[in-house]
Structure formats: structure tokens, C-alpha cells
């Protein structure tokens, strides 16, 4: 397996975990060639997670925007409420296959933490989730869920107390407990083989979209839009379409208070090439190579790095990455609530915001698919405060 996407990717990891990464790659390759493993994974995706998720024609939204047809890929309807479970399930099944008794994970918005805790409960593994103390506060609902599912939630106070620091702490814990622990990486980032594994476990999203859109419209979409934090839901929906050059791929990044302020997390828009969390990719760093503190209203997009496959897609011009501010995301959140009766995750609202921008400019015969990566129950308190509802 190649751990590089052009110059991006690689394994910039401490020596202590290198043999484990090599073993992981070997075991992963064996597992995906094993029919029984794939069958079991598909079984749980269908019967337990509830796949396949609908590709829903958002007629009200499309009419309101007055342009192209908007389809929503309903990853919010998965068990646990987001796309994260597709990957957590796959990795936990792999952990079990490898005989690991304990899984750990980082989490930003808490959805990956909940998904990992869910899978750990199902397959009887010990589970510890690392979450920034800032995120614990703003995504409290998910913290309760994780604990209820039997996971230990450890507050990370170092650094900025958000997602990047949770990854640091999870990696430090992994180094400490390397023999019995499997690190369930929640996004398409980290040292090889994680970006490849996560993309492979998330590509079910894009594979379904392709089948569904051909059924409904007889042709491929013109645009696919997804939010990008670490990049797992986006690479999952993009990947099966990469060779279909007529399909435009757009990633929506978190611009927070604006990309001209120091309060954003728009990694590809404003970052530069560097090495973070084991991978060479775009990072938000200062001139001395110190990783910058980032900000976004959405805990899941609040990350100063991005998956290396996205860095590559950006470099070769296959995908475009656009900044969306907090305000634009919150407005999009409310638009979907009121026009379609769906409460989206604030992360997914970034993708919606981009759709709201471009759809009115497109011909009525164009097709836009937005990845609704998660539901927004976890965000209602924050949004209500912002809008004084």
C-alpha cells in the first residue's frame, strides 16, 4: 500500500508506534480481502447502522434557492447520528479481529467518540475517548452519551483544549498502552495507513450516492459538496467520483469569524505545507512552524490540519475548497430547519451554506448533492444562544 498522495501523507510518527502501524497495514490489507470480514461489516452497516441512507431530493430547498436540484445525502439518519459510525465500526471490527482488548479515540464534536463508544459496547471492548475541555463544554450532549455507553471520557486541557490537542493526547496514550490498544482514528488523517483506511470505510457514502443518483436522475451530479474538518465525510463522498471529471467536488472549510482574522480553521485556504499528527499535509502554522490555535463555532471542523488526500486533491486541482464563516453556517442551519424540517449538524451546515451560495447561480437542470454528514441535536443549545431563540 502506498502511504502517499503525491507528496502528502507518510508516517511521521514516533518510533514506538512504527511496528504497530506496519502491523495495522498488514492486518487491514488481509481483512479487506477476507470475504467474511467484509460480509460482517456490511451486515452491521445495514442491520445495525441502518444503511443505506436516503439520497433525498430537497424539493422545498431547491425551489427556495431557485436554481439547480439539491439532493441531501442523509448521513444524519445513521445510528448515532452521523457518518462517523461507518468508520468506527470498520476499525473496531478490525481491532477485534486483531485481538485488541481496548480502543481509544479522539473526538471534536463528539460524534466519533459516540460512534466508537457504541461499537466498543457492541463488541465488548474497553473504551477511552479523549476530548478537548472546550469541546466537552460545547458538545455536552455527546459527552453524556459516551459515558452512558460505557466509555471513559478524558478531558484534554493541554494546548487549546480542542480537537488537535485531543489527537495529541490520544497518541500519547497510545504510545503508553501500545500492546493492548487500538487507536480508532476518527478522520481521514494521521500516519499511514489511517487516511487510506478511513477513506475506504467512508466510501460507502459516495458509492451509494452514485447508485442512487443514477437510479433517480439517470446521470451523475454536477456538484458534490461536503464540509471538511479532518476530511472523512468529504473524502467518503468524493472518492468514488474522483475519476468522473465532470463532477465538481467542493469542500467547505470553517472560516470562523473570517479568514482575514486569526479566528478560523480554514486549513487549505490559508495554510501551508507542514507535518502534523504523523502526516505531511496543509497545516495552519506560524512562520516558525508552530501550529496555530484555530477557531470555529463547530467543534468538528476546529482542526489546524486536513487529511493528506484532500491536500493532494487540492494540489492537482481535482477538488476546490471554500471558506464558510460561522454566520453563514448558522444561517444555513436555520434555512434547512425551516424549509425541510431537518436540523443539521453545525459542521454539515458549512456544506449547506456553500450550496445556498452556488445553487441560485446554476441552471435548473443541474444536480447538486450535499453531504448531510450529521444531525444537529448536539448543536441546538449553541445555535439557540447565538440567535437568542
Amino acid at each position, binding site marked *: 500500500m502506498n502511504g502517499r498522495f503525491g507528496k502528502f501523507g507518510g508516517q511521521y510518527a514516533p*518510533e*514506538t508506534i512504527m511496528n504497530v502501524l506496519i502491523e495495522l497495514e498488514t492486518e487491514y490489507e488481509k481483512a479487506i480481502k477476507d470475504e467474511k470480514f467484509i460480509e460482517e461489516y456490511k451486515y452491521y452497516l445495514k442491520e445495525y447502522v441502518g444503511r443505506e441512507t436516503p439520497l433525498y431530493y430537497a424539493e422545498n430547498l431547491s425551489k427556495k434557492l431557485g436554481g439547480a436540484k439539491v439532493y441531501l445525502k442523509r448521513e444524519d439518519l445513521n445510528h448515532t447520528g452521523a457518518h462517523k459510525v461507518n468508520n468506527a465500526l470498520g476499525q473496531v471490527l478490525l481491532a477485534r479481529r486483531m485481538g485488541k482488548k481496548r480502543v481509544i479515540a479522539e473526538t471534536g464534536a463528539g460524534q466519533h467518540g459516540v460512534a466508537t463508544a457504541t461499537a466498543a459496547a457492541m463488541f465488548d471492548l474497553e473504551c477511552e475517548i479523549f476530548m478537548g475541555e472546550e469541546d466537552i463544554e460545547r458538545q455536552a450532549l455527546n459527552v453524556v452519551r459516551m459515558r452512558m455507553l460505557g466509555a471513559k471520557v478524558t478531558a484534554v486541557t493541554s494546548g487549546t483544549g480542542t480537537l488537535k490537542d485531543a489527537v495529541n493526547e490520544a497518541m500519547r496514550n497510545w504510545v*503508553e498502552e501500545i500492546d493492548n490498544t487500538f487507536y480508532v482514528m476518527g478522520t481521514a488523517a494521521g500516519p499511514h495507513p489511517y487516511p487510506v483506511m478511513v477513506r475506504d470505510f467512508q466510501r460507502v457514502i459516495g458509492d451509494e450516492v452514485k447508485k442512487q443518483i443514477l437510479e433517480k436522475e439517470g446521470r451523475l451530479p454536477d456538484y458534490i459538496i461536503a464540509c471538511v474538518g479532518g476530511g472523512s465525510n468529504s473524502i467518503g463522498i468524493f472518492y468514488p467520483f474522483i475519476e468522473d471529471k465532470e463532477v465538481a467536488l467542493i469542500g467547505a472549510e470553517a472560516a470562523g469569524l473570517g479568514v482575514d482574522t486569526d479566528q478560523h480553521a480554514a486549513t487549505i485556504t490559508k495554510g501551508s505545507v507542514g*507535518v502534523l499528527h504523523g502526516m505531511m499535509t496543509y497545516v495552519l*502554522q506560524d512562520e516558525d512552524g*508552530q501550529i496555530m490555535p484555530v477557531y470555529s463555532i463547530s467543534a468538528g471542523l476546529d482542526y489546524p490540519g486536513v487529511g493528506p488526500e484532500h491536500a493532494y486533491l487540492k494540489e492537482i486541482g481535482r477538488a476546490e475548497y471554500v471558506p464558510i464563516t460561522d454566520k453563514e453556517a448558522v444561517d444555513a442551519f436555520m434555512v434547512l430547519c425551516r424549509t425541510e424540517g431537518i436540523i443539521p449538524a453545525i459542521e454539515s451546515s458549512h456544506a449547506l451554506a456553500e450550496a445556498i451560495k452556488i445553487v441560485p447561480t446554476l441552471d435548473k437542470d443541474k444536480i447538486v448533492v450535499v453531504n448531510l454528514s450529521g444531525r444537529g441535536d448536539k448543536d441546538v443549545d449553541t445555535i439557540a444562544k447565538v440567535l437568542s431563540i
Partner: protein
Amino acid sequence: MNRIDEKFKLLKEKNQKAMIPFITAGDPDLDTTVDLVIAMEHAGADIIELGIPYSDPLADGVTIQQSSTRALKNGAKISKIMNTVKEIREKSQVPLVYLVYYNSIFKYGMEKFIEECSRVGIDAIIIPDLPIEERKDIIDVADKYGVYLIPLIAPTSKERIKTITNNGKGFVYCVSTTGVTGVRKEISTNIEEYMNIVSQYTKMPKALGFGISNAEMAKEFKPYCDAIIVGSAIIKKVAEGKNKEEVIENVTKFVSGIKEVLIG
């Protein structure tokens, strides 16, 4: 000959093991760093590791994380640290090694960084997040300028030790435990067994580090390696000192206490 090679040759002749302290450059400030290095050398330090402070030190525990934060808050950066090394070199020929995370080198410019290391008198660099798989480019540059890239192994390395130490220069950094840096009460790894395995693959001097917190532990592991590295335990003394004089006094006492048990 590299200062590191000379030092190990000399120590072998005197039947001593090397004492290698680690401090973060710029913690609490770069002036103190100069004084600390000189004082530690006089107290018996044989090789001195200088950490380049970084925002996300993956391999480090809380003590060194906080040390890095203090140094960064006080404006420490690579260009200033290079000047600090120049200042040190006006007064001392003690072997100096940078401990630096890869992104710091990458952002600075790999060749620029290595060339400056060579120019100011840094003898070697240790990069904790750069495994052999990713070392090809930097090894060529390091060789070109005569700066040693220290091979690093862990208890989980096993058969990787051979490739890691092949053509290695300076010494092998042997991480004592599966874990991050930090003071420990005891180390659960069977160090004798571990060091024997390493000796089967390489004749390079073996330096044991991570978790060694006092003279007793140094004495316990002394028979199995050629050098003892102490980091967090010293950083704690730096953090706890009320003023510069106290810091230097406490660190010096601690360093000489450890060197004492490594003699003979």
C-alpha cells in the same frame, strides 16, 4: 572527528558512562540556557541535549510540554536558539545535540537548518517523529554538513533495530519504555534484556533515556548502557527554582549527583 565521537572515546578510556542532560532552549529564557549549559558541563555533563520548543510535542509528557510552552511564551525560536549556541560555543566545546520535531525543521528549511547547525557548532540532532522510513532526504543533507542524525529505537522496535542503527552515527537513543517523556518511579522494561538485544545489532554507544529521574535509577541501568539521558527530572528543577541562581544551583547539584554514579 565529531565532538560526540571524541567524548565517547575519552569516557571509554576513563571507564565512565556519559551523563546527558536535556533542557528546553529558552526555558525560562535564552540567557539562562547559556548559563545552565556551562554550569551543567562543569558539574559533569558529558553531552547536552537542547530541546527546540514546539507547540505540539507528541512524544512528550506534561513536564516537557509545559517547558516548551514557557520557552515559546518568552519568544524562543530557532534563529535565536542558533545564536544562543554560538554564545555557548564561545565558552565551551561540550558536545551539543538538538532535540527537534520534524515540522520545525521542515518549515525552517531542511538544508538551511542543517547548515546552520553545522556552522554554529551543533554536533547532532534527534528527531522524535521521523522514523527511518522518512529519513532518506535528511540523512543526505546531514551527511553533507557533518551533522549526525541520531538513530532512535524503542522497546517495540525489535527487528527494526538493525536497519535503524545501520550506518548510524553518534550514539543510539534507546527509549526506555513504551511511553512519553516524564519522571517515573520505576521502569518496567527489562533494561538488561533490551540493551543486550541492541548490542547484537550495533556497536554504537547506547544512550538510555525517558523516565530516568534520579541517581539510583542511573546506577541501576549503568551496567547495561554507555550513557544515561535525564530530561524531565532536570526540567522540574528548572521550573521549581525561584530565581536564576537557585535554578542553576539545583540543576548543578542534581547533574553532579548523577554523574558521580556513572564514574568507574
